[in-house]
C-alpha cells in the first residue's frame, strides 16, 4: 500500500508521454496538453477548495460561518485561550513524539527482517502481520486493541487506559508505515557496501551502525515524520483505547465538530495547514538544493576527467 503512497518523491523518465494524437502535434491545438490542464485543474480544485474555504473563514469576524463579518483574527486568540484544546495539543504532541520514536525502531527492525532474512519460519505471516494495520478499518483495529488492554488489565492489572495504551496502539499502527518506507530504501541499497565493510574488517554490528544505518537514515527520518503525523491525526483508534483522562487533539476537535461549526476549528485548521505547508516547502527546498548540488557534483566528476 504505502509503498506507493510514500514514494511520492520518485521521479520517472520524462520521455513518457501518451500522445493520443501524434498527428495533432503540428497543429496549434494539442489535445493531451489541454486534457492534462483540465484534469489537473479539476483535481486540485477539488482537493484544495475545502481547505481554502476553511482558511478564509478562519479570518471571519462573524461566528456564522456563512456570513462574512469582516476580517478578524479573534478566533486565533480564542483558540489559544482554549485550555482544553491546548492541553490536548500537548498530549497529542507527547504521544505522537514517543509513538513515532518507538515505531521507527520497530519498523526498521521489521524492515530488516523482511529484506535481509528470508526463509525463516512464518515469514509471510510476518509480512502480513506487519503491514495489516495499514489496511484494516480503524474501527476494528481500535476495538480489538481496546479488548486486549481490558483483558490484560483484568489479568495482570496493566495497562491502565490512558496515554500508555494510546502510545502502544499508535506504535503498532504507524510501525507498519515505517516498515514500508524503510523497506523500500533497504531494498534499493547496494549491499555490497556492507560486504565491503565486512571485507575491510568491520564486524556485523559495526557494519550495521557505521554503514547500513547512515545509508537508510533518510528513510528512517521520513518514516518518523510519517508516523508522527499519523499519530497526531488519529481519532478512531485513539478514541477506543483512550482512558477518561487523556484527550488528544483529534478527540477534542471531534467532539467540538460534532456539535456543529466552530470557528476555532477553522483557525486550528489554518495553523495545521500552515505548519504542514511550511515543512513541505522546506523539504522541497532542501531537495531542490540537494539535486542541484548533485548535478554540480556530477559535472565536477565529469570535468575531473
Amino acid at each position, binding site marked *: 500500500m504505502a509503498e506507493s503512497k510514500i514514494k511520492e518523491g520518485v521521479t520517472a523518465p520524462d520521455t513518457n508521454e501518451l500522445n493520443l494524437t501524434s498527428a495533432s502535434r503540428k497543429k496549434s491545438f494539442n489535445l493531451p496538453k489541454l486534457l492534462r490542464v483540465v484534469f489537473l485543474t479539476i483535481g486540485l480544485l477539488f482537493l484544495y477548495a475545502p481547505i481554502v474555504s476553511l482558511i478564509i473563514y478562519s479570518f471571519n469576524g462573524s461566528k456564522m460561518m456563512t456570513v462574512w463579518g469582516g476580517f478578524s483574527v479573534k478566533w486565533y486568540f480564542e483558540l489559544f485561550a482554549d485550555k482544553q484544546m491546548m492541553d490536548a495539543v500537548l498530549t497529542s504532541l507527547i504521544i505522537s513524539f514517543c509513538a513515532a520514536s518507538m515505531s521507527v525502531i520497530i519498523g526498521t527492525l521489521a524492515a530488516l527482517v523482511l529484506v535481509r532474512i528470508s526463509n525463516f519460519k512464518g515469514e509471510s505471516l510476518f509480512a502480513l502481520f506487519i503491514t495489516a494495520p495499514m489496511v484494516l478499518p480503524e474501527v476494528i483495529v481500535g476495538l480489538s486493541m481496546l479488548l486486549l488492554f481490558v483483558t490484560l488489565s483484568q489479568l495482570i492489572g496493566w495497562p491502565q487506559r490512558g496515554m500508555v495504551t494510546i502510545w502502544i496502539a499508535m506504535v503498532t499502527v504507524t510501525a507498519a508505515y515505517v516498515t514500508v518506507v524503510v523497506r523500500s530504501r533497504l531494498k534499493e541499497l547496494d549491499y*555490497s557496501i556492507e560486504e*565491503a565493510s565486512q571485507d*575491510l574488517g568491520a564486524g556485523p554490528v*559495526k*557494519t550495521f551502525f557505521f554503514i547500513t544505518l547512515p545509508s537508510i537514515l533518510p528513510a528512517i527520518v521520513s518514516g518518523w515524520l510519517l508516523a508522527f503525523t499519523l499519530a497526531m491525526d488519529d481519532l478512531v483508534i485513539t478514541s477506543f483505547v483512550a482512558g477518561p483522562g487523556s484527550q488528544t487533539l483529534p478527540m477534542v476537535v471531534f467532539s467540538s465538530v460534532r456539535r456543529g461549526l466552530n470557528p476555532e476549528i477553522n483557525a486550528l485548521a489554518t495553523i495545521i495547514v500552515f505548519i504542514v505547508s511550511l515543512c513541505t516547502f522546506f523539504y522541497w527546498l532542501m531537495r531542490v538544493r540537494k539535486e542541484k548540488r548533485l548535478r554540480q557534483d556530477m559535472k565536477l566528476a565529469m570535468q575531473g576527467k
Partner: protein
Amino acid sequence: MVTENSKVPDNTKSNGANVEKRRVSTDIKPPVKNTPKDRKPLLVIKDLTKAYDANLAVNNVNLTIYEGEIFALLGSSGCGKSTLLRMLAGFETPTSGAIYLDGQDMTNVPPYKRPVNMMFQSYALFPHMTVEQNIAFGLKQDKLRKAEINARVEKMLKLVHMEEYAHRKPHQLSGGQRQRVALARSLAKQPRVLLLDEPMGALDKKLREQMRLELVDIVESVGVTCVMVTHDQEEAMTMAERVAIMDRGEFIQIGGPREIYENPNCCFTAEFIGSVNLFESTLITSDHTGSIIRSKDLENEIRLDIDVDLADGMEVFVALRPEKIYIERTFPVDENGKELTANYAIGVVENIAYMGDISIYYVRLKSGKIVITTLPNVDRFNVGLPTWDDQVYLSWDPESCVTLTF
C-alpha cells in the same frame, strides 16, 4: 603493462596430468613445464564445492595460487567464478572442501577476519564517506594509531594518483576515479590476497583498456597476490599471468594466456577463447613419423609431423585458428614450390566481413562446411585479394593444427 615476456614463462600447468593427456598438439617449442619454483604457494583451494539447493555453483575445485601472481577466473555468466571468489572473500560458506591461506584453514573464517580484501564490481564505496574516510575505514577497524592511518591513507592516495580528491565524496567522482579509490581502499590493509570482481565491469570501453594497464601496474608495484574474476577474455589475457577457464562450476583449463589460446585442451576452451574452426575427424594412423587425420568436412587429409599418441581410428577434432589459415586464389605450394597434397581445402568465398584492421572471410567448402579465416588489410585498396564468389584455396601449416579428443 603485462606482456607475456615481462612475466615468468607462463606455460604453467597446475591441474596436471589430465590436461597433459588431452593436449596432443604440437607447440613450436615444447611447453616449458614450470610451476614457478621460486614462488611459494599462497592460496590453496581443496575440493571446494558450493551447492545452492540442487545446483552445484562450484563443483569440487582444486587450485593453487602462488605468491605475487595475478590469476584470472574466466567464464561466462553463471559458471561459478563469482561464487568461488565470494568463497575466497568469506561471503559464501562452502558446502564442502577447504580454503588454505599461508597454510592456515580459512574456510569458516568470517570475511572481517580474513587477511583478504576485495574490490567490488560496483566498487561499493561508502556513499556517506569521503575518499579519505573510505580508504581509512579498513585501517580503523585494525585500531591503528591515527598518525599511522593518515600516513597509510596518504600513501594509498598517492599510489592511485588521487591525492587531490581526498575530500570528495564518491558521487563526485568519475567512474575511473571511483575505481582507483576502491582499489586504494582494498590495498590499504595490505591484504595477503587482493580479490577483484569484474574490475572493469562498470567502466566504458575506452576507459577499460587504459585502466587495465594502470591497475596491473599498481598491483605489481605493490606486489600483492591477486585473484580476479572476469567474463572478458581480453581482460583476462592482458592482465593475468594465469587464467582458469570455468564452466558449470568446474575448471576446464588452467594456463598462461598463450597456452590457453594456442594449446586449448578441449573444444570448449578452443571455442571460448577467440574463434576457431573445428573439423570433426578420424585419426587414420599415428606414429613417430607423423599422423594422418581424415575429416569428413575436408576432401584432403590433414597431415601432422608429430605423433598425436592416440589410438588409430579414434574420433578427434582438429582445431584451426582463422589467422593461421592461408587464403589464396592459386593452388598452394610448400616452401620448395611443390603443390600441396594435404593440409589444404578448396572453397568459395561466401561472405566477407570488413572489420577495419582485418577482414573475416567465410569460405564454403564442397562439403558445405564454412571455414572462417582472416586477412589483415595491409593494402588500403584491397588489390588482388579474394572477393565474393571467388574460388579460393585454404591451406595451413601442420604445426597450426591442434588435435582435440572432446
